């Protein structure tokens, strides 16, 4: 099985501090992979480096292409997309303009069908299409960020903490849509502190602690692991009943 995304022995530093040490991971076609771990483990750093936002040492290849010489913009064009933790929407532009720009690297005719697909996936965005992105609620902003990324027809969508700060009912909605993406042929690399929800929809999982992967395996095995249950799932009582 050839991996869609393959990351080998990656190190990422902020100045002298090494935030990620010797991490390797891969994501196959039509797979949902999750990275779980505590705050500050280096999950966001890793995603940003894979996207090219931060520099890294090590090898990353996507769809058989070496990513090292490519800028963020060119990585987007190869079908890699990141929905960042802070969403980075165009706040003073309306929903539809945000979505239209998501398809900046795509032919206009294809973008029109993508737009219909995104509106089917997120009917709420269609209702608010003339509203400014900055005035949307947190959940709607997350939907818009995901919709904007999907407009570029990515092969792999990297989601950074999509549930952060959202009401449980919206979190459930977002995770349901992540599951639907796989059916549409999009692979997902999901970074989450909400380990329970992430492990329910993922095929495989990596557990990250202090910049290293300490455990990996199928989502089922990881969820059944006693150490993981104690460290990550035990803290997840509050607000989880909806899932």
């Amino acid at each position, binding site marked *: 099985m050839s991996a869609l995304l393959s990351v080998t022995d990656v190190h990422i530093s902020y100045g002298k501090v090494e935030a990620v040490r010797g991490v390797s991971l891969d994501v196959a076609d039509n797979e949902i992979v999750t990275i779980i771990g505590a705050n500050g483990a280096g999950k966001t750093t890793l995603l940003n480096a894979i996207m090219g936002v931060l520099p890294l040492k090590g090898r990353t290849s996507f769809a058989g292409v070496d990513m090292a010489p490519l800028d963020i913009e060119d990585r987007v064009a190869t079908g890699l997309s990141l929905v960042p933790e802070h969403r980075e929407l165009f706040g003073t532009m309306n929903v539809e303009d945000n979505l239209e720009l998501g398809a*900046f690297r795509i032919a206009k005719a294809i973008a029109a069908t993508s737009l219909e697909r995104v509106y089917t996936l997120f009917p709420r965005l269609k209702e608010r299409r003339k509203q400014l992105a900055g005035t949307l609620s947190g959940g709607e902003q997350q939907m818009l960020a995901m919709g904007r990324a999907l407009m570029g027809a990515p092969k792999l969508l990297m989601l950074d903490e999509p549930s952060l700060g959202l009401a449980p009912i919206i979190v459930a909605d977002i995770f349901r849509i992540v599951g639907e993406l796989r059916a549409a042929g999009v692979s997902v690399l999901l970074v989450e502190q909400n380990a329970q929800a992430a492990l329910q929809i993922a095929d495989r999982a990596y557990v990250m602690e202090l910049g290293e992967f300490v455990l990996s395996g199928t989502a089922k095995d990881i969820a059944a692991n006693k150490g993981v249950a104690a460290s990550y799932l035990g803290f997840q009582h509050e607000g989880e009943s909806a899932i």
Partner: protein
Amino acid sequence: MNTTIMLFLLQDGITNGAIYALLGLALVLVFAVTRVILIPQGEFVTYGALSYAMLATGQVPGTVRLAVAMGLVAFALDLFFARKALHARLVLRSIALNIVFPFALLGLVYALVGPNTPIAVNIALALLIVAAIGLFLYRIAFQPIAHTSVLVLLIASVGCHLALQGLGLVFFGAEGLRGPALSSAAVTAGPLRFTGQSLAVYGLTVGFIVALWLFFGYTRTGKALRATAVNRLGARLVGIRTTLSGQIAFLLASVIGAISGILIVPITTLYYDTGFLIGLKGFIAAIIGGLVSYPLTAVAAILVGIVEAFSSFYASNFKEVIVFTLILPVLVLRSLAAPQVEEEKD
């Protein structure tokens, strides 16, 4: 006060204000997209105006040779920064933009220059020359430091202004130049006489504002430029090249500057360093607009023009003082109204 005089002053102020409006809009545009405060905007005005004036007398302006030289430097920079991953497409694109375009322009200027060249051709040539200089200026001076703070960009901007102004003295000499009017027609309305030139100023200003509004509101490229201004990281994450946005912003600014210059050079004699003062007045309008608001900038520019016209009539010695003092209350108000913010680094 005499009504006729007042009308004359108003007319004069609005004509100048329209020019300042164009320049102010260009400043806001460049700042929003690249965070560069474009001090050399005035040099685009001078270069456009004086290149046009020289072409009209049948001479080849030195600016076209500057464009060629800057193109060569830009090409070298492109190669240097891409040295780790040289694609044939990238090199070809760079050759087309940085080598072929300025040399073709040079050839075109030498082929077409002459005392009987039509005004429209001279205008087109002057615009192309300044457009090339604006584009390469971004590539050479600002693109390599695009990620640095506003202060660093401002210092680079001042450096570019001084360099271009010095080169302006070399190209055009210390003598002032005037260019031929776009049209010699005139319309009389009551006591006022509108020359074809001032009508062209109004028409082009309004036309440009409408065109910019359509460009930013309805085209994908225009929206991408706005997106870059709103959120650089977000723009990169959807595949918008911020360097391309910067180039487009500089291209627009240089063309706007050159047009302004070409519009005023038949009205007033321009010297190699006049552009700076004109650019500064556009800058005042842009500051009143908070460097973000296009409509506020346009209105402020008209106001600056009118204040200038009245103060040059009543207190001509203090003309510039009065105009530049306009900025003080605005800055005080703005700094009181706006909370202190740390500069965001990206």
